């Protein structure tokens, strides 16, 4: 990339950063709170999952009681990551969630990616079918999104239910490192909510 091209890209990224914003509200599909970071080329939405939802989901995938509780003991978010750049002005976005950081009560934590769960399940003798379902249910650890691409997946944060934290995001757009912070993301409380 020439110096001129690099400067143009930096200018565009700076302009994009001026319009980055965090939107919060209630996710229409889940009827639960969400936090969404967005600019003109990408959106990243974290939607709360209730611990009971997580229990039901993984019990339905064949996990047994103690293992279900191990999973539901984490703060789980459905995460939707989208490259919204137009094909006529497309950007390539890459992420590695191992770079993301959780800031909670003065501590800095990492997101637990799918690779870190595999030895946990193998040591517990969990069946291959369950491991496969678990692995593909999580947000991919690394991903490369072209215009129009997106993925869904769960992300796991080890903070108490009901706690709030800041999530520090890192990604690359067209190879340029970027960072952002979503403040006061709140983990769902472990409560029973009757059907409406």
């Amino acid at each position, binding site marked *: 990339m020439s110096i001129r091209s690099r400067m143009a890209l930096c200018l565009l990224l700076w*302009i994009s950063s001026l319009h980055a914003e965090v939107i919060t509200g209630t996710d229409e599909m889940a009827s639960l709170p969400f936090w969404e970071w967005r600019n003109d080329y990408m959106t990243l939405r974290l939607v709360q999952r209730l611990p009971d939802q997580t229990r039901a*989901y993984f019990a339905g995938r064949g996990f047994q009681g103690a293992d279900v509780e191990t999973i539901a003991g984490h703060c789980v978010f459905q995460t939707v990551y989208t490259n919204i750049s*137009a094909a006529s002005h497309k950007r390539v976005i890459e992420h590695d969630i191992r770079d993301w950081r959780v800031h909670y009560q003065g501590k800095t934590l990492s997101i637990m990616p799918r690779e870190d769960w595999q030895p946990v399940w193998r040591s517990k003798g969990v069946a291959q079918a369950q491991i496969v379902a678990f692995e593909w249910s999580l*947000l991919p650890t690394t*991903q490369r999104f072209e215009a*129009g691409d997106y*993925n869904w*997946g769960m992300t796991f944060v080890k903070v108490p239910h009901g706690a709030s934290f800041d999530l520090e995001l890192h990604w690359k757009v067209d190879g340029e490192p970027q960072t952002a912070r979503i403040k006061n993301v709140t983990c769902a409380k472990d409560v029973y909510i009757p059907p409406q």
Partner: protein
Amino acid sequence: MHHVLRAIATLLFVVGLLGSAWAESNVLHPVEGQPQAADFTLNDIDDNIHRLSDYRGKVVIVNFWATWCPPCRFELPSMEKLWQAVQKKDVVMLAINIGEDADTIFTFTTDYPVTFPLLMDHDSSVIKRYPVLGVPTSFVLDPKGRIIYRAVGTREWDDKVIIQQILSLKK
């Protein structure tokens, strides 16, 4: 000066948003190098055997999915519409389920009826031979078995642009 910059930035942002219309991004992305797709042999839920290399000479759409994956469910109706439009035009669609059994998938099709083959990759050995990091991910293979296009996440498969991309590979 700062206000002017912000105004320019706002204008560019709005233009950018308009430019990022859905139709523009609902496309299949070319795969660099057009690698040969890994061959596989899998059963479908009706116990028919599908070997990828047996479909050489046809355009093949390979989709990796699971019943528990919301965006996978979302795109199934448009995949069925695409299938109805192209199945008699030397195009094959293989939807490969990850890790679930035939009973689970069969029950699922009560709510999501589709007529294209639903294959089962029980141990995820096939998906791991493809450049897939999450589901749904789809690939379009040309008649020589090369991966020409990919899509990460949902597409509106019955969109005319995508149909044209697929059918153009028949040449």
